[in-house]
C-alpha cells in the first residue's frame, strides 16, 4: 500500500497539466455548446479526426514534393498540420451542426454518428494513404516551451518547467472563454439561447445561428485538442488515440458546471487521474487495471456532481431524458 501512496508526489504535476490539456480544450468547446442548449457528444469524433489530419498535414508538408517546390513551408509543417486538424474538425462540427440543429436530428444519435464516422474514417484514410491500420509518424511536433530557470522552484517548477506550447494556448483560451461568456454581447446571447430559446427568439436573436456558431467553436477547440494529441508529444497518429477523452471532456464540463474556470479545474482533476494511471503502470500493477483509472474516476466524479445537483420539488422524475433539444 505504501508503494501505491508513494505514487503521489509533486512530480505528477507536470504530467497532470500535460494530460489535462486536450481534455480542457475539448471541454471548453463542449461548455459553449452546452450553454447554448446543445449537448455535444461528438467531441470525441472531432478530436480524433483532428488528430489524424494534424499528423497527416504535418507529414505532408515535410514530403519531398513540398520540400522541392516550397521549401520554406517545411519548418512550418507542425503549424500547418495544426491548421489542417482544426479545419477538419470544424468541417465535421459543421456537419454535426447541420444535422442536429437545422435538420433536427436527435443530438445524442447524431453525436454518436459523428464519432463512428471519425473512428471508421480515420482508419480508412490511414490505410489508404499510409498503408497501415495501426499508426503512422507525423515526423514533426509542435514545440515545447522550456523555462529552465524554473528548474529548482518547488511547485511551479514541476508545473511549467517544460510544457508544450498548446498548454499556454489553452490557458489563454480559458481566460478568453470566461470573458466572452460573461462580458460580451455574444456570451449574453449564448446564455439566453440555452436557458430559454423561445424568449431569445422573440427578442430577435437567431437561435439556430448562435447554436451553430457554438458548435463551430467546439469544432475549432477540438481541433486544437486533437492536434495536441498527435503533434503535442508523441508526434504520431495511432488508431483510436482519443480513447474516450471526448467523453471525459463532457464529464469535465458537467463537473465544472459549464463554466470555463470550473471546467478547467475539473480537467485538471482528470489530468491527474491520467497521470496517476501512467505512473502506476511503471510500478508493476497490471496495466489494464491502471488503464481503468481515468474511466472509473470519471464515473465517480459524475455521480458526485449529479447528486449535488438533483433538486427537491418534483418527485421521482429525475429520469428526464437528456434530449437537450435545439429549439422550435
Amino acid at each position, binding site marked *: 500500500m505504501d508503494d501505491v501512496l508513494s505514487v503521489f508526489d509533486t512530480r505528477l504535476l507536470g504530467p497532470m497539466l500535460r494530460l489535462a490539456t486536450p481534455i480542457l480544450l475539448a471541454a471548453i468547446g463542449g461548455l459553449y455548446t452546452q450553454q447554448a442548449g446543445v449537448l455535444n457528444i461528438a467531441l470525441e469524433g472531432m478530436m480524433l479526426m483532428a488528430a489524424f489530419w494534424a499528423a497527416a498535414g504535418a507529414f505532408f508538408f515535410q514530403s519531398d514534393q513540398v520540400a522541392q517546390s516550397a521549401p520554406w513551408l517545411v519548418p512550418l509543417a507542425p503549424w500547418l498540420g495544426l491548421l489542417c486538424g482544426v479545419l477538419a474538425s470544424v468541417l465535421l462540427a459543421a456537419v454535426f451542426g447541420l444535422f442536429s440543429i437545422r435538420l433536427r436530428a436527435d443530438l445524442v444519435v447524431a453525436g454518436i454518428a459523428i464519432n463512428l464516422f471519425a473512428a471508421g474514417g480515420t482508419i480508412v484514410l490511414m490505410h489508404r494513404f499510409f498503408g497501415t491500420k495501426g499508426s503512422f509518424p507525423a515526423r514533426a511536433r509542435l514545440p515545447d516551451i522550456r523555462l529552465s530557470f524554473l528548474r529548482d522552484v518547488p511547485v511551479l517548477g514541476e508545473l511549467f518547467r517544460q510544457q508544450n506550447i498548446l498548454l499556454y494556448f489553452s490557458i489563454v483560451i480559458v481566460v478568453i472563454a470566461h470573458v466572452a461568456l460573461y*462580458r*460580451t*454581447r*455574444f*456570451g*449574453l*446571447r449564448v*446564455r*439566453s439561447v440555452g*436557458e*430559454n430559446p*423561445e*424568449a*431569445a*427568439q*422573440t*427578442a*430577435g*436573436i437567431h437561435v439556430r445561428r448562435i447554436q451553430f456558431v457554438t458548435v463551430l467553436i467546439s469544432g475549432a477547440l477540438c481541433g486544437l485538442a486533437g492536434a495536441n494529441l498527435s503533434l503535442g508529444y508523441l508526434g504520431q497518429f495511432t488508431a483510436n488515440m482519443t480513447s474516450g477523452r471526448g467523453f471525459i471532456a463532457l464529464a469535465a464540463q458537467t463537473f465544472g458546471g459549464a463554466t470555463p474556470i470550473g471546467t478547467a479545474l475539473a480537467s485538471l482533476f482528470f489530468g491527474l487521474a491520467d497521470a496517476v494511471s501512467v505512473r502506476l503502470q511503471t510500478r508493476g500493477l497490471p496495466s489494464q487495471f491502471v488503464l481503468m483509472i481515468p474511466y472509473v474516476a470519471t464515473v465517480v466524479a459524475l455521480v458526485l456532481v449529479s447528486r449535488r445537483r438533483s*433538486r*427537491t*420539488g*418534483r*418527485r*421521482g422524475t429525475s429520469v428526464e431524458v437528456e434530449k437537450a433539444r435545439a429549439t422550435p
Partner: protein
Amino acid sequence: MEEQHDADAAPVVVMHGITKAFPGVVANQQAQFDLRAREVHALVGENGAGKSTLMKILFGLYSPNAGSITVNGHVVRIDSPQKAIGLGIGMVHQHFMLIPSLTVAENISLGMEPTRGRFFDLNAAVALARQLSTTYGLRIDPSARIRDISVGERQRVEILKALARGVRVLILDEPTAVLTPQEADELFLVLRGLVRQGMSVVLITHKLREVMNTSDRVTVMRAGQYVGTVETSATSTRELARMMVGRDILLRVEKGAAQTGEVVVQVDGVTTEDDQGLPAVRGVSFQVRAGEIYGIAGVEGNGQSELVESLTGLRGVSGGRMLLNGVRIERATTRRRRELGMAHIPEDRLVYGASESSSIADNAVIGYHYHPPLAYRSWLAASRRARWALDLIRRFDIRGARPEAPIGSLSGGNIQKLILAREMSRAPNLLVAAQPTRGVDIGAIEFFHRKLIEYRDNGAAVLLVSAELSEVLTLADRIGVMYDGRIVREFAGDEATEQELGLAMLGAGDSQRASA
C-alpha cells in the same frame, strides 16, 4: 366604459384573408382584423378560435398560408419577430419570454444590447431600463434577476421590452390570467396611458367582463374564422358570448344541494417548495367530504399548482400531513394514492395528463393497466386496451376518435374529455380537478360541469381548483380562497359573492384562517 376616445379612422394594421394550417388543424380560415390608432381593441373567442394564432402571425412567429397584411398603408410580409418589431408591432405573450437567471435590464436589452466595443455595456442597459420605467409608469428594479421578482413585475418587464423597441402597436395575450384584480386594474390604466400617447393596443382575452370595461372595439372569432367587429359601447357580454359560440348558452348549471358524508381528504399545515426551492405552499389546511365539491379559488401562481401536485403525488411535501380516507399519504407513491381512490385531472394536460406521441388506447388505460379488468397476471393485451378506449369514447362522446390513432390527432378539448372520461371511469373517492375546463369549448364546458356534479351526487369528494371565478361559484359547495400559499378564507357556496371572493384573492378583506 371609457370616455369617447379619439381614435383615428384610418387603420394602422389591416389583416385580410388570413389562412393558416398546422398539421391536423386549420387555425385560421380567411380571418381578418383591423386596428386603428389610439384604440384598445379586444380580440375574443373560445380556445381554439384562432385569436392567438392570428396575432402570432402579425408578430411574425408564424407565416400565413394565404392572405395579406397591411401596416400603415403598405402591404408587408412579416416573417420574423424582428421584422414585426421593425414595423412597430410588439407582443407580450401569455407565457413570459424572459431569461430567469439574467437581470431585468439584461432582459429588456436582449437583442439590442448596448455595447462598448465587443463588451456588453451593463450601465447603459440599466440606464435605459430606468428611463423607460419612468416614461411609461411601469415600476421595476433594473438589477433584480427575473427569477426573484413577482409575476406582475415580470409582466411589466415584458411590456417594457416591447416599448424599448419603439413599438406603436402592442399585442397582449391573456395578460390578466396571472394578475390579481388590483394588478389588472393597474395594467389597464397603463394601457390607457399608452393609447393616449398615440399607441394602439390589442387585447387577446376570453374574459368578457374585462372586454366590456376596457376596450373600444371588439372582434370576435370562432373556429378559426372571423365573426364580426363591434363597438364595445354598442354590445353586451351576452351578445359577445352568442357571437363566440353561435347560440344562446346557459352560463350556470343546475345543481341540487350537497349530501355530505365522511371526511375523505384532510390536509393539515402542508408546506411545499416550488421548482426554484422557494416556498409555494405555506401551511394549507382544509378538508373535503364525500358528496361535496370544494373549490379552491385564487389567481394562478399562489401555490395552487404546487398544492395539487403535492396532493396527487407529483411533488414532495416538506411539512404537514395529508390523509386520504384516514391514511397518511404525504410520502405515498402516485400508485398508492390511486389505489386509495384518488383520481386526478391535471392542469397541464399535455405534460401530465396525456402522452402526445402515444395512441388513444395507450392514453386511455393508464392507472388501470396493471390489474383486472384490463390486465391479467401482467398480460395487457392490445385488444383489451382498444376495447377500453372505445368504451370511454362512446360514453363521453368523443367524436372521430379511433383507439390506434395518436392522441395528438384530437383537439385540445377532446383530449381533455378523454382524460376526464378516464379519471372518472372507476368511481374514485376523490376527484382532484385542476383547471378542468381550460382550453375546452364553451359548449363542452357545460358537459364537464354536469359530469362533475353527477360525480358529487354519486358520493365522491371533488376538489376543484380553478382560476375561473365563475366556474368556482357555479360548482362549489364550499370555497377556499388561496393567496400567497395559504387558504386565507373559506366560504359556504351560497354566501360567497364575487366582490368578497375578489378581495380575499387579493389577501385583503376579512382574513380569518380556514379552520382545520
